Structures are given as C-alpha cells and as structure tokens.
C-alpha cells in the first residue's frame, strides 16, 4: 500500500511538471459558458474581445448598483462557496477577492499554505480533492509555480480563477487595469474597448505575471502596448508577444495615454539582473521629469506593492494622474464581475445538479 501511494504521488508530480514545462495552452480552460467567459479564468489569452468587454461592462454595472448605498452587499451569490487557495504571500489580491465574494454574499474560505496541511506535505492535487469534496463553487488560486491553476482546473468541478501563478499570468489584475484604463481613456463607455490607445509597461517584465496578462488583454482590447525594460529583464520569446519592445524609456513615453510601472521583484531575483538599484532607477524609474513626457491627460499606474524611490518616485505615485489607489478599488469591482459571470448559472454545467 505504501509503495502504491508513493508511486501515485510520483506520477502526479511528473504530470504537474510536464504541464508546467509545456506551458500555457496545453490545458484547455474548459468550454465557454454562455457568457462568453470560459469556465475557468486562467489566462488573459483565453478571453475573446467580447468576453473581456463583457467583464468590464458587468463591472461598470456592479459599481453603479452598489454606488452610494447604505448596504454595499448584493444577494447574488448567496449560498455559494469561494475558496481562496493561496500558496504565496499576498495581501491585496486575497483581500480583494475576499471582499468581492463577500459583497456578492458568497461564503469565503481562506486557505493559505502556512498553517495548513500543505506545510505537512499535502500535494496540490490532494488539497484540490479536499476542496472538491467540501463543495467549493470557485477556487481562487495563487501559486508560485506557473501553470498550477491550469492543473487545478482539471481536478475540481468548480470554477478556477488564476490569482497569479509564478511568473506566468495574473488575469484579474489585467482586467482591473483594463477597467481603469477604459474609465479614464474611454469614459467607461458600455461596450467600448481601448482601440488606438497607447500604453507603456515599464520594468521587470521577466518576473512579471502582470505584464504578460496585460500585454495579452490590452492587445485583445485594441490598445497598442510597448514594453520597456533592460534587456536582462525581458523574457525569452518576448518578440512573439503582441507588443513593441524598447530599451529607451524617454523615447517610449512620448505622448502615451498611460504608463504602467512594474515592481522590481527582488524576491524572485536570484541573479544579477542590473548592476545597482540606483542605476536601474536612473534608466527605468519614473520620476517627475519623465512623468511630464506622457500625454497631458495620461495616467500613471502601478499594480502594487510599490518600491517607492526604485521604479517610481513618491512624487509621481502621489501626484496628478496617478490612479494607483483607484486600481485597488476597481480590483474589487472587477473581481465581483468575474465571480458573477463564472458562478451565476454555473449549475447549468450539471456539476452540482446531482450533488446538492
């Protein structure tokens, strides 16, 4: 018995490794629901333009429905269970998802790797099957391994939402950035995309799941995206992404509609990617002078948490046109939209039809 259990474990690990090695796209995100949204939200690449616009429109309506109310809670997902499965430290994303689910009256269970059976060596699959047995309707997963949510989607019957996997993707961050951009650049108009808008994404693209998801989603919505980073912080294969690449920040910033600064992820940097922090800041930090280069009504974004004084100067982060705190507020709304679209009507797929 012991032998067979070990064998099963090894086989499962091998599978996971294969899936991760093969990268995104090998695990289908499930058949599209009638909302146009896939059954799981794993990658910004899974979203068609219509599906992405529907999420943004739904978020806009949800914001309207709740704005200025005494009771900032909707009964929409009453009786549904959302599990936050976080294998990696996160404050804002987890709180944002928790708040979004609670605003829709879902029950929320927070599960972090620390202080759970994961620290006793439980595998991702066994954890997934436990959650499945407890009847989780949605699993919001953050994991340090790229592709982990894709694997998870094959094991649980509920919807899986990727809340950041390794250096791969963070689709809800891209959606909230697109929502913020659309509000400022297109007035939040129903059905609108970001056609013709120019966005520059600056910094540690190599370690950034935010950058990858944003490039994919913003391109889907019609914006033209330019990545600016030192050559050492660009991933292999970036030339295949639907964007321009530049090493010259000053030139790239001229007249753009929005600039998105990425955090320098020192915790993921095990090698020397740039000589000194100071040199990085001089070449790729956003200071007031560079801030002046973008369009006069342009906006400054940062997914947070910020390294003030490294990639962004405090005066810029707190200055005119900075929408960084707005991004946080919009995150809750957009995640509400995602949970609404994934979970309302999910009984149609039959999973819980017989189980409840």
């Amino acid at each position: 018995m012991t032998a067979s259990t070990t064998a099963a474990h090894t086989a499962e690990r091998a599978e996971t490794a294969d899936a991760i090695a093969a990268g995104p796209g090998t695990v289908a995100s499930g058949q599209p629901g009638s909302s146009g949204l896939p059954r799981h939200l794993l990658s910004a690449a899974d979203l068609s333009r219509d599906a992405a616009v529907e999420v943004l429109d739904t978020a806009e309506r949800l914001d309207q429905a709740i704005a200025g109310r005494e009771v900032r809670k909707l009964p929409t997902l009453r009786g549904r269970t959302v599990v936050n499965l976080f294998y990696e430290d996160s404050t804002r994303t987890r709180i944002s998802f928790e708040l979004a689910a609670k605003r829709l009256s879902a029950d929320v269970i927070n599960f972090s790797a620390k202080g759970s059976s994961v620290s006793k060596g439980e595998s991702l699959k066994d954890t997934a099957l436990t959650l499945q047995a407890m009847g989780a309707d949605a699993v919001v997963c953050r994991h340090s391994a790229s592709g982990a949510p894709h694997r998870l989607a094959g094991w649980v019957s509920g919807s899986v939402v990727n809340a950041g996997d390794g250096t791969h993707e963070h689709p809800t961050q891209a959606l909230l950035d697109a929502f913020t951009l659309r509000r400022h650049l297109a007035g939040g108009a129903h059905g609108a995309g970001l056609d013709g808008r120019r966005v520059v994404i600056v910094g540690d693209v190599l370690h950034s799941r935010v950058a990858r998801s944003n490039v994919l989603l913003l391109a889907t919505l019609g914006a033209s995206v330019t990545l600016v980073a030192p050559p050492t912080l660009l991933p292999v294969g970036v030339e295949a992404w639907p964007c321009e690449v530049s090493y010259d920040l000053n030139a790239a910033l001229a007249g753009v509609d929005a600039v998105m600064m990425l955090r320098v992820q020192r915790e993921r940097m095990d090698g020397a990617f740039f000589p000194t922090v100071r040199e990085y800041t001089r070449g790729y930090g956003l200071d007031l002078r560079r801030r002046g280069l973008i369009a006069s009504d342009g906006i400054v974004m940062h997914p947070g948490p910020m390294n003030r004084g490294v990639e962004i100067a405090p005066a810029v982060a707190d200055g005119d046109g900075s929408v960084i705190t707005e991004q946080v507020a919009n995150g809750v709304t957009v995640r509400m939209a995602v949970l609404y679209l994934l979970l309302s009507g999910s009984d149609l797929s039959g999973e819980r039809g017989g189980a409840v």
Partner: protein
Amino acid sequence: MVPSRPVQTGHGAAFRQSFVPAGRDESATNPLAGPPATADPPPGARTAVILSAADIRRTVDRIAHQILESVGDRAVLLVGIPSRGVPLAHRLAARMHEFTGTTYAVGGLDITLYRDDLRGRPPRPLAETRLPASGVDGLIVVLVDDVLYSGRTVRAAMDALRDHGRPAAIRLAVLVDRGHRQLPIRADYVGKNIPTAFDDDVAVHLAETDGSDAVHVVRAS
C-alpha cells in the same frame, strides 16, 4: 485496504463533457425574462394587437393622473425596471409634469442581481441602475414596469430598493397585467388587464426601445 479518498463520485469529468452552453436568448422559455419584443412570432402563432400607440398614450395619461391623485404633493420618485420600464417611467414623469408643472425625479433599477433564478440560468448582462444620489429615504417610490406576470421581478425590485434605503412607500405601476402571479403581489396602477394563457407571449413595443408603440399578444397555438 486502500483508504478511501474524498474523490469526485460521479459528478466530475462525465458531467463536464455533457455540458452544453445554452443560448443566451432564452426569453421565449423563461416567463420572467420579459416579452421577446423583436422576435418574430413562430409559425402558426396568432398575434393580436391589444393596445395601439394611441391606446398606450391614453393609458399612460390615465396612470399619470392616478399617481398624482393618490400621492398628492408628497415627494415621488418614479423608478423604471429595465429595459422597458425605464422609458415608461420617463413618459409618466413627463405627463405628470405637464399636468402639475412640478418636476418628478426618475430613476432606473436593475434587478438582475436580485433574481431568484440566477443559479439555473446563464449569467445575464446587467442593465443600468440610476437612482438619486440623495437616496430613496422617505420618498414614495413608484416602480414602473411594462408587464406584470409572475411578480418575481417586482419582488426582486423591492429587495433591491430595501438595500438602497427606506422609502416611505413603494407603489407599482404596470402597462399590462397578464395574470399568472406566483407571489402575493398586485399592482396599484394598471394600464390594461389582459387574460392570457400561461405560455402566451405579451410583447410590449415602445418607441424608445423598439421604434414604435404597440402591445401584442402572441397566442401559443
């Protein structure tokens, strides 16, 4: 020997494969989705015009008078339920303004997030909600919808209003009452009572949403 694991029992991959995305437009089979105004009647169906454009105009005038008669000079907010309740609310407010010279506030209230059938149906697109920034506290809220049928929409609207504040009273105005209530709800102001069979369709067309004014009943044959 082998300890039983909490694995999926039956509800898993098999169901996933049988999942067929349903069409978005299921208003024909859903009594709560409102009338399919733009859909052509199915072959063999009999269509009867119940209210003409002139009838609708007179009906709106009468309801406007009835509202004024019953609320007196207390503060009123007309709240339309999308999609066709909103233009009707605007028409009522315009007529009431004409009769009294007072301006009446109009809002829209999307009830999708308060429906009781969200689980079993595909996610619906949300409509616009627009209520006064000062809230609804102390106002007489007149809910306006085109067709009163099961009463579930109105139930949802009352739940939604409760989350927005505490109106002094809630009234209900509808252009057509077609019967078949599933909840103990009745309208205070009714344009026309139309006896229908359960599976008939009542189609309300308004100039603002459909290009012209008319109410049809499409009889299921």
